[in-house]
Structure formats: structure tokens, C-alpha cells
């Protein structure tokens, strides 16, 4: 059977129900056994402004949002004009019948959205469009109907109206005899998969890790973590507080962790900037904590609803002075789940802040994830002292690994967690000897972090051309490497999942005799490239993008193609 790979883009105004439409369409495809990868863009304002939902659905793995939409479903003239240039040549356009269809650029089909939806209350044009597109791609009707039943079944009237609108679109498409040709594939034998966003996966990972305290302040694009945990964490004996600002959030997390609870906060750049001083404090007093930074375009307010990977250097260095911390960067929605458990494990084991770097594209991306294996990343806990053998307890005793057992309030082993430089017992001490000894003790822990296992390599290891990426860009890079290999242009790829400490050994091996190494990242400064230069002394070539959008596979292919040919 030929493989299916279809990119659908829905475009309209805020208030048109584009998100619901996109989510329903994708869910139907995943229920049919397909893979999915989504990308959304939306205005910062709640009403008005453009909303775009791009869904790529494939019979094999879906690793990027797709370079161009094959099908554009536009709700008004402005959106049609804006997105038409992106359309795959010969692609299909669905447009509201009130708008004159475009003269060229693809196969245009007019839908009387207003007329068809008028029988089903207000604002159900999105369900009409769902019916049209689902029929056009020959979706399994029963699966879509089941979804409508699940979503609206609790309210008879809502169910009747939404199903009615859906049916009218489906029927219209059938009557017109429209058919895309390539159809959605139905694999009834495929094991059921989860359709999750990055933020949902992070929140679920936190619960699985045993998180018992979360504090946060609303911010795009991290709010869904606060919202989902507010709804669910209390069922697991956890506490969630929405606090007054991000400093309160991290301070509360540190307070909770001090008492022994696994604790996390989640924010984006503006909030993360505010946390700097407390990150240094947590590192200084060796209190475990997990901080999610879902990056967006900065600085300042930047573009709150657009993506960027520009907080990397801030994550590595945030806070005055010098303080150890661990920085992780998941690449996929599945990573978001397992690596959040890793983040807790590392925070607890090494008693320091762990920063999990997501970004808007990953946090809001929906992917079909195979069933979660609960034991894949076993949960690990912090080292606590043996109460019976406390003796003269030294909270931050200098050890070979730098890790010292951490007493819990309510048990013996009282101590002070002081941001002031302190001796092994935690008492203030400013002598050069103490300063040296304790600073080295805190930093020594980093040497024991198994950074080397946090990489993923792909492509041709014998190629003189390499590409390095980190975070949300993995899928587009892997697809680009795959596409070039099919053109006879081999490239070797490496995705870094831990950025601090760096996975030095695999990196050095990867870089060893490469002629050209590119670092692809969504920022202007080439932050990861700078880190590689400062830590490993290697020079790389930049593939940078900082316009608020993720890479497309095609962009990376274009960058690499010339070099691999010459190389």
C-alpha cells in the first residue's frame, strides 16, 4: 500500500473555531491509525487576528509539520490570500463561497459555509469544514461521528447541532463529487495511540515522576502545564498554587522541595528572567527543583505567540555568580514525557536546579505517541541521611561525588540552607579555604551527570558533513538528512538533549574529522554554536532562523545541499 502523507492547513480568524477543527481532524486521523504532527499560529489577542492550524497526517512517522500544505481550508479572503503562496503546486483550496475563488494556484472549491451552517446555530462553520475535508480525504465517518459524540454527547442540543453541521459539510462534498485522490489510511490493527501536546506530556511526566508540588504564574506558552496540573495533580496527593509572580513560584517550589517534596514550576522567557536570583540560590543551597522554560520570541514581550530557541545561554548561566545546574531539551512530545521524569531524577540525584527547555512549537505541538511505558525511565529519589547514623550531621558534607545526604524537616538533622557561603554544616564561612572547597564540591556534581547518553544520532556516520540541533527542531533535521540521503548526499546528524553539562564524548567523536558541521537553531546568535565553541573550541556553520516560525525540512535541505555537493 502506498504511504499516505497529507498536509492540511486550516486558516481563519480567532473565534472561527480553527483550533477545535484542527484538533478534531487530527484526532480522527490518529484514531484511524495514522501519525500526526501539528503546528499552530495564533494572534496574541483573544479575538480577531489570524489563526492557522497545520496538520500533517501520515501513515508512517510524522516528524515535522510539512513544508507546504497540500490542502488549504480558508475561512475568509484575507486568509486565503495570505496562505495561497505556501500551497503545494496543484494543491486543493476550500474557500467560503462568499469569496471569489483564486484564479490560479490550485484546485479551488467553494463551500457555502454560511448557508450550510445557518441551520445549526451560530459559529459552526468549523464543523461544516470538518465534514467537507473529512469526506474529501475519505476519512472513516464512524470514527469522526464517535469523536463528535464524545465531545458533545453530554449536551443533546450541542451534539445535534455539531453533528448536523458536520453532516451538511460531508454531504455537500459528496454531492459535488470532490475527492482528493490520496486518502487517509485506515489501519484498524494499529495499537491505539495517545494524541498529546508537549505541555500535556510535560505535565503527565511530572505526575509520573512523583511531583507533589507545583507553583506557577500564567504565561504563554507554558500555561497549559499549570492548568493541567491544577486539574489533575491534587488527585495524586499533590498541591498546585497559582502565585503572584515567577519569583514567588520558584521560591515556593524551593520551600516545598526543602521539606522533601518533588517540586516544579513552568514559565516562559519573561518569567524565567525573573527567576534568575532564585536559580542561583537553589544551586547554592543544593535544593532540587525542576524549572520548565517554554521559550518564545524575546526579548521583552517579543512575540508571545511565536516560537524561538533563544533562552539557551540564559539557562546555562542565569543568576549572578557561578552556579551548577542541568539543562535538558526534549525534541518530541514523547521526549517531553520521559525527559520530565529525567529532569526530576537529575534534580533529586544531584540536588540542583534542572531546567527543561521546551519552546512554543513543541509545547503546543500535537503528536501521536505510542502508549507510554511507565518503567522506561525509572523514578529515582534524593539521597537522605540514615537517621540512626546522623552523628554530627553535616548537610553539605564534601563527598567524592559532591552529593551529600539531605535531611528532611520532621526528622533529625536540622540544618540551615543558606545562600551565604557556608561550611559543611551550613554555617556562614567566608574564608578562602571554605570558598574554594565548597564551590568545588558543588560543581563536582556536574562531572557525575551522565550527559553522554543525552544525544540522538542519525544519518551517515561516514559523511564529512554533520548537522547538530537541539530541542524542538529534531524532526525537521532528521527528515532533511533522510531526504538528502535519498538524493545520494549523505549527512550525519546529532540532536543534543542535554545542553548543560554538554555530552562531550559523543560530541567530540561526532566532530572528530568532519569537514563541515552545521548547527541549526531558532535564534540569531547561534547560541548552541557559541556553547560548542566556548566549551569544545570547535567552529561550526550556522543555520539560524529567528522569525518566530519553526524550521521546515525544505529549509534545512536547501542549506545543506550546496555544501554536501561540494564537500
Amino acid at each position, binding site marked *: 500500500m502506498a504511504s499516505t502523507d497529507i498536509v492540511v492547513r486550516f486558516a481563519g480568524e480567532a473565534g472561527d473555531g480553527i483550533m477545535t477543527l484542527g484538533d478534531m481532524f487530527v484526532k480522527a486521523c490518529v484514531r484511524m491509525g495514522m501519525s500526526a504532527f501539528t503546528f499552530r499560529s495564533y494572534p496574541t489577542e483573544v479575538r480577531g487576528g489570524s489563526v492557522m492550524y497545520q496538520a500533517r497526517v501520515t501513515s508512517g512517522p510524522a516528524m515535522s509539520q510539512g513544508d507546504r500544505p497540500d490542502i488549504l481550508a480558508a475561512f475568509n479572503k484575507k486568509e486565503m490570500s495570505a496562505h495561497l503562496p505556501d500551497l503545494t503546486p496543484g494543491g486543493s483550496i476550500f474557500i467560503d463561497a462568499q469569496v471569489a475563488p483564486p484564479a490560479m494556484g490550485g484546485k479551488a472549491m467553494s463551500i457555502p459555509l454560511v448557508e450550510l451552517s445557518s441551520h445549526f446555530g451560530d459559529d459552526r462553520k468549523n464543523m461544516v469544514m470538518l465534514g467537507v475535508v473529512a469526506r474529501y480525504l475519505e476519512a472513516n465517518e464512524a470514527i469522526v461521528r464517535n469523536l463528535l459524540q464524545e465531545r458533545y454527547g453530554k449536551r443533546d442540543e450541542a451534539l445535534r447541532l455539531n453533528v448536523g453541521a458536520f453532516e451538511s459539510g460531508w454531504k455537500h462534498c459528496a454531492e459535488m463529487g470532490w475527492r482528493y485522490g490520496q486518502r487517509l489510511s485506515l489501519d484498524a490493527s494499529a495499537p*491505539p*495511540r*495517545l*494524541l*498529546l501536546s508537549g505541555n*500535556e506530556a510535560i505535565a*503527565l511526566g511530572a*505526575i*509520573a515522576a512523583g511531583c*507533589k*508540588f507545583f*507553583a506557577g504564574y500564567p504565561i504563554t506558552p507554558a500555561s497549559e502545564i499549570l492548568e493541567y496540573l491544577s*486539574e*489533575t*495533580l*491534587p*488527585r*495524586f*496527593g499533590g*498541591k498546585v*498554587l497559582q*502565585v*503572584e*509572580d515567577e*519569583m*514567588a*513560584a520558584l*521560591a*515556593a*517550589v*524551593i*520551600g*516545598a*522541595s*526543602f*521539606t*522533601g*517534596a518533588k*517540586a516544579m514550576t513552568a514559565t516562559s522567557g519573561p518569567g524565567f528572567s525573573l527567576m534568575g*536570583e*532564585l536559580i542561583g*540560590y537553589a544551586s547554592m*543551597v543544593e535544593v532540587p527543583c525542576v524549572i520548565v522554560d517554554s521559550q518564545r520570541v524575546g526579548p521583552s514581550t517579543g512575540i508571545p505567540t511565536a516560537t524561538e530557541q533563544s533562552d539557551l545561554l540564559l539557562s546555562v548561566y542565569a543568576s549572578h555568580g557561578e552556579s551548577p545546574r542541568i539543562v535538558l531539551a526534549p525534541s518530541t512530545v514523547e521526549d517531553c514525557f520521559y525527559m520530565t521524569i529525567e529532569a526530576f531524577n537529575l534534580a533529586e540525584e544531584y540536588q540542583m536546579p534542572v531546567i527543561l527547555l521546551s519552546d512554543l512549537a513543541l509545547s503546543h505541538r500535537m503528536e501521536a505517541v505510542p*502508549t*507510554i511505558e*511507565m518503567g522506561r525511565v525509572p523514578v529515582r529519589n534524593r539521597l537522605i541521611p540514615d537517621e540512626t547514623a546522623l552523628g554530627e550531621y553535616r548537610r553539605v558534607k564534601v563527598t567524592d561525588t559532591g552529593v551529600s545526604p539531605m*535531611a528532611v*524537616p*520532621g*526528622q*533529625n*538533622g*536540622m*540544618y*540551615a*540552607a*543558606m*545562600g*551565604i557561603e557556608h561550611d559543611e554544616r551550613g*554555617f556562614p564561612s567566608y574564608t578562602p579555604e571554605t570558598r574554594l572547597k565548597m564551590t568545588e564540591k558543588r560543581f563536582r556534581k556536574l562531572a557525575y551527570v551522565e550527559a553522554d547518553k543525552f544525544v540522538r544520532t542519525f544519518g551517515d556516520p561516514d559523511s564529512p558533513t554533520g548537522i547538530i540541533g537541539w530541542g524542538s527542531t529534531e524532526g525537521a533535521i532528521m527528515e532533511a538528512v533522510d531526504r538528502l540521503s535519498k538524493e545520494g548526499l549523505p549527512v550525519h546528524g546529532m540532536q543534543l538533549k542535554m545542553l548543560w553539562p554538554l555530552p562531550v564524548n559523543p560530541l567530540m567523536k561526532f566532530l572528530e574529522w568532519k569537514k563541515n558541521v552545521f548547527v541549526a537553531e531558532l535564534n540569531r546568535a547561534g547560541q548552541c554554536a557559541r556553547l560548542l565553541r566556548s566549551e569544545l573550541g570547535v567552529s561550526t556553520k550556522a543555520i539560524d532562523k529567528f522569525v518566530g516560525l519553526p524550521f521546515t525540512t525544505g529549509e534545512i535541505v536547501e542549506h545543506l545541499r550546496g555544501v554536501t555537493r561540494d564537500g
Partner: protein
Amino acid sequence: MAEGGYRSELKPVWCEGCGNYAALDALAKALETTKPRPQDVVLVAGIGCGSRLPGYLKAFRLHTVHGRALPAAMGAKVANPALTVIAVGGDGDGLAIGGNHFLHTLKRNPHILYLMTDNGVYGMTRGQASPTAGPGLTTKSTPYGSIETPVDPAALAITVGATFVARGFSGNPRQLRQIVLNALLHKGSSFVQVLSPCITFHNTYPELKQNTKEVPAEHDKKDKLAALKLAWSEIPYTGVLLDIEAPTLHELLDSVAAKATKAGPNTIEGLLQEFV
């Protein structure tokens, strides 16, 4: 009860005659009376002269960064409600850099005690004007006199929702001990403003000794408006101004947990199933 009381072996770094000594004494005495196990006590502070206080008591101690004692204390209490959690600090720590947390922590009514030693200046940085500095106060940072309206910590605490608000004076240690004891026994957020002169940079002992008056015996501590009137009076009244009952943050979170448990699955597998 701790052997040899709740005082630690550390000797305070405060100047001789500092108002903080009386606050430390009152807190130590309150602990001796209520007798929690020292390892069940968490003392939380930010930065400043007053924030040094936890070091002089036996307990688990969290010395956070400037201004963040209250959210850290709240986090500790919420995570483990069995602990006795006490936050201490000065008026600069609590009302300037930490002012936002003053409002939001007290309004949530966590069961913690917050002891603020108030001297109108930043003693640790050598005497600049602080949020409670009176108009016209001349300090190194206000060489021509303060041009700001001072904050009244007790009045503020009453309006933002603390359920126990009192004002004490280091020059009246007997009353201060009683106040701090009552504050520690209160269920919910208790706030104690201690008029605690900085002997070195802003010695207000003489005027406070003359001006302070104890809260009249007939004052109704359940009456918020009456409490506010006393707090805002020209006369610096000392004593318990407000003492009311309200559900604590922890109790409220428990009711949230009960609702959440009814609303959906309480296993990871169950949650994941909702995404199929």
C-alpha cells in the same frame, strides 16, 4: 522540647540594644511554651538584619534571597502541613522587595506566623530609608528628608486578609511575648509587626516609649474595621488588633483535592487513557 531551650549556639550579630533581640526572645519563649519538636519547625527568612533571626534558633532554617521568605514559607507549609512554619524579616525585606508576596501570601491564609521587625531603615546596608520611614526622615539616601508616604504594615495586613494581626514593641517585651505566643497559636496567617528600633541608624526608642499605647481591653478583635481604625491611628497602639477564624490554605487545598478526585482518574494509566 529542645534541650537547653530553642536558642542555638550562634551568637547574634546585631548591635547592642537592637530591637531584634526582643523579637528573638519573644519567639524563643513562644516556642518554649508551645513545645513543638525543633525538627518540626521550619524558620524562613530573606535578607537583612531581621532576617538573621532564624540562625539563633534550633530548627530547620531556610535563608532565602531578599524578599522571598513568604512564598518559600508558604511552599514549605503547603508541602508538609505538619510542620510549624515561621517567616521572619524586616520591613524592607517584607514590604519593599517582597511587598507583592506580603499581599498575596496573607490573603491565602496559610497557617504560618510572619514576624516583621520594623525599624524604618535598611540597617544592614547602613541606614537608608525603608517603606515604613516616616515623611521627612533624613537618612543617607534621603539627605533632604523622605518624600514618601510610609506604609503601615499592620493596617496593610488587615486589609489584605491576614486573620491574625498584632503590633508589638521591642521596648515592651512582656507584652511582645504574649503577642507572639498568641500569634503562634493562631490557626491561619498571623502577622506580627514588631516596632523594633535600629539603635545605630534610626533610634526611635525614646519617642516610641512615650507614644505607644496598649490596645484598649474593650477592643473587639473580631471587628476588622475597628482593628483598622486602631492600626491607622496617630497613636501607635500595641497589642492584638485582629483575631478571626477562616479556612486555612491547607484546608482549602484539601477541599480542592476532594473535588479533583471526583472529577477524573487518579492513576497515570487512567489519565493517559483520556488522550487515546
